[in-house]
């Protein structure tokens, strides 16, 4: 008969947290940023089809770092939650707060009860009619939830990226400006690494960036109630190119 060794709950939780942090730390970073005309989501992602950013509902988006299969299943569950809720109540009854608290419960339950915690970190972002009404909820692997303001950075080199952004972010930034600031910060903190001294930083490479907007007034801009819009291909190139000119 095998002997069950005693492990203190503190040690157990610490081991699980360390395990999850290690998984998340390997991933590349994601920035979610509240801007004047919406919320900008910028991820370092070499794949054009395996997304880290996704649309949940009319004004709600999802951003994640960590294991793809885990956050993808959480994203799909979030889309189902939002669509069922919007279908059975009304579209305006779907809120980021509701979704974030469901996510927190589910992440917390997995962290304590399952054999392995989720190695993911999520942001649920909701764009408001004014910037004060923007919500950025950050959810970590253990189910803790934080209501952030301004911007959120998740993933491997988060600290470096936060430091880089702290100087450049302001509430007055427009969406293109926000994307440029985020892309710059990601380049400095990301896997590309800081260039050796003296050499100019390499140009921002649109092919390793995944960018999406939650536009504040999609109905007047595009006649759509869906605020989420992916920015890719030529549009992203132009947007980033603009910075190198100035």
């Amino acid at each position, binding site marked *: 008969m095998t002997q069950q060794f005693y492990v203190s709950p503190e040690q157990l939780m610490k081991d699980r947290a360390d395990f999850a942090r290690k998984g998340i730390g390997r991933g590349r970073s994601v920035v979610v940023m509240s801007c004047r005309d919406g919320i900008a989501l910028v991820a370092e992602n070499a794949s054009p089809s395996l997304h880290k950013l996704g649309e949940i509902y009319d004004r709600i988006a999802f951003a994640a770092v960590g294991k793809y299969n885990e956050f993808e299943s959480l994203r799909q569950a979030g*889309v*189902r939650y939002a669509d*069922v809720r919007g279908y*059975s109540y009304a579209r305006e009854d779907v809120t980021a707060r509701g979704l974030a608290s469901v996510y927190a419960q589910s992440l917390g339950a997995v962290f304590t009860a399952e054999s392995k915690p989720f190695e993911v970190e999520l942001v649920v972002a909701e764009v408001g009619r004014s910037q004060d009404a923007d919500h950025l909820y950050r959810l970590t692997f253990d189910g803790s939830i934080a209501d952030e303001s301004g911007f959120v950075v998740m993933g491997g080199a988060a600290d470096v990226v936060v430091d880089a952004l702290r100087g450049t972010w302001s509430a007055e930034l427009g969406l293109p400006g926000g994307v440029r600031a985020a892309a710059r910060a990601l380049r400095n903190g990301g896997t590309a690494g800081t260039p050796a001294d003296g050499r100019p930083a390499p140009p921002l490479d649109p092919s390793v960036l995944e960018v999406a907007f939650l536009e504040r007034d999609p109905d007047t801009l595009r006649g759509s109630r869906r605020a989420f819009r992916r920015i890719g291909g030529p549009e992203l190139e132009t947007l980033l190119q603009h910075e190198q000119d100035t």
Partner: protein
Amino acid sequence: MLPDDAAAAVPRAASTSFADYLGAHHPGLLPSNRALGSVTPSTDAGHLAPHATTIVSLTFPGGVLMAGDRRATMGNVIASRHIEKVFPADRSSVLGIAGSAGIGLDLTRLFQVELEHYEKIEATMMSLDGKANRLAAMVRQNLPMAMQGLAVVPLFAGFDADRHVGRLFSFDVTGGRYEEHEHHSVGSGSVFARGSLKKLWNPRLDEASAVRVAVEALYDAADDDSATGGPDAVRSLWPVVYVVDAAGARRVPERELEAVALAIIEARSAAGREA
């Protein structure tokens, strides 16, 4: 080798349908799942709720158009003068409903969520044929209610981005899906509207004349079918018209429809025909 239950998850993931998900987890929310209580197949519940009437749809080079009148009836009573029966299903398709109005509106809402849900889960748009098949499946699920007089027959039109043409589909209550060519109409006034379309439609219509043809077909349907409403100049109520082309689906503005409808009324008055 994958463990059995893990392998079984793969085929289960084949359907990302919102309606299927509702059916499995929230069956009470499906429009087709409303129990009518103890009813025999011969029970006719058709008189209990308003009926939506005529929808016409026609293709033109580079797109397709759908129009519906604004009337719903309950027996001999006009239940609504303002009802809208043509809706955008997503960015590049529209649907119109004829038959039991309440169930049709629920079906429309479910279908709209179905398409958006697929797009969000899969990060790509469903093909036009896929959309028509999903709508057919939803109509089929409503068959028990159709047998009790609460039938809904939609008309579906969309822009096929691959073939670069507008296409339209009609359905029957058993879920049959039929691709229609040139033009089609459904609802109580459809016979008269189709007769009108046969004379007015031609393959070289531009968008503006296609709108005029659709409004005139509805005018002819309203002329002979008491359940179809004509343009109401007193209340300024005009048909609801959606145009779908490569740029997407958009609603034709009221003032354009007003001009078209008034021009038709004027032309008919000037002609001075009795019948």
